[in-house]
């Protein structure tokens, strides 16, 4: 089952069989109940999750407002990449919005292998860089506030 998940996961498509096998050795299937946290800001970043079912809220806590969700992560998405970069602490919270099933991968073991086998390191970095780029584009679009206040000189047709 785990082997099938890793073999078909879109993120891992470009991994070589031996890298996928390494991932398999570092991975377990987990279930996270609704409202439980997968990650908490500041805690040790030693793993990542491949979401199989359910959705996860990526959040920042603001004491004035509470937890602010800035992105929803869903099936086939990845939660967590801070395990790759020192000081390996989570930058955000991740909370299950509903019951979630996922594959949890041990980042510490993976990182150790990456340090000694650059080929594996390159493959994993390629996978995660792709996600980082997609998230960066999404974050930039979010920052643009495309549907927000407009210049009064803009046109007034029903389209934005």
């Amino acid at each position, binding site marked *: 089952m785990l082997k099938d998940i890793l073999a078909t996961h879109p993120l891992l498509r470009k991994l070589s069989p031996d890298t996928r096998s390494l991932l398999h050795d570092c991975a377990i299937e987990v279930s996270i109940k609704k409202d439980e946290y997968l990650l908490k800001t500041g805690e040790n970043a030693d793993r990542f999750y491949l979401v199989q079912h359910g959705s996860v809220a990526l959040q920042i806590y603001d004491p004035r407002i509470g937890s602010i969700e800035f992105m929803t992560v869903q099936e086939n998405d990845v939660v967590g990449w801070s395990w790759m970069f020192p000081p390996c602490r989570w930058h955000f919270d991740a909370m299950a919005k509903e019951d979630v099933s996922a594959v949890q991968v041990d980042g510490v073991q993976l990182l150790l292998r990456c340090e000694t086998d650059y080929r594996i390191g390159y493959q994993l970095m390629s996978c995660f860089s792709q996600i980082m780029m997609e998230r960066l584009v999404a974050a930039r679009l*979010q920052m643009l506030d495309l549907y927000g206040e407009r210049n009064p000189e803009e046109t007034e047709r029903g*389209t934005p």
Partner: protein
Amino acid sequence: MTMLEELTDPMLTSPWVVRDVEQETSDTFSIRLEPRDGDENKPYRFRPGQFNMVYLFGVGEAPISVCGDPARLGTIRHTTRIVGTVTRHMGRLRPADTVGIRGPFGTAWPMEEAEGKDVILVAGGIGLAPLRPVMHTITENRDKFGRVILFYGARTQEDILYRKELEGWASSLDLEVFATVDRGTLGWHGNVGVVTTLIKRGPIEPGNSIVMICGPEVMLRYSVQEILGRGLSESQIYVSLERNMKCGIGHCGHCQLGPEFVCRDGPVFPYTRVARQLNVVEL
């Protein structure tokens, strides 16, 4: 002059009476217009995607998409957001007030071409309004279309347009609606993130699909990228553009986009026809 003759002159407004005004969100509202007494047989018909020039007497004129049901003749519905002088005054309209209408103008969404295909709609913000007639046409002729998927992005949950209607479509067994907001606020349990992230994981099958996109131009460009990334070709994509439309008939040139006049040759374009212009700065 008869009403028919009036409509044959595209520069002449015809008077319509406000039947009701509905506040959609804090800055967006819909008006429903009916013909004046004696004009009930007015031959007003529009195709999904077209727009009217709405004239407020003594204030000015603005191009507004028609967002009602094309099959319901005799009334006109417009949804707009307050962004300038005309729309601000439009927001103050009350039942029984009169406005002038010229139109409908422009090109329509390719509904005939969409028949027999999966229809993928991508809307951002008030861009849902010009796609609403498409949803009406589809739901009233459901057997003519394949799978129907709507991706909709709004700023916050408070800015979601036609919320009840969206919920109705979402609960329908043969329509798939995916909504997201750019900012999650208290009480919102749905998806948070830009609409392009929905496209990435939506249940799209590229082969026999047609895509219609309406929203801010930046959102539109990035949506196209995601659609292409899902294996569809540019020729399967249609977009609705907005420019500074004034005359509605391609005479004044205010809405020129390279070789196109958006009011006459658009607002709905095959993406292939405008792809190059969309990436030219200040065009």
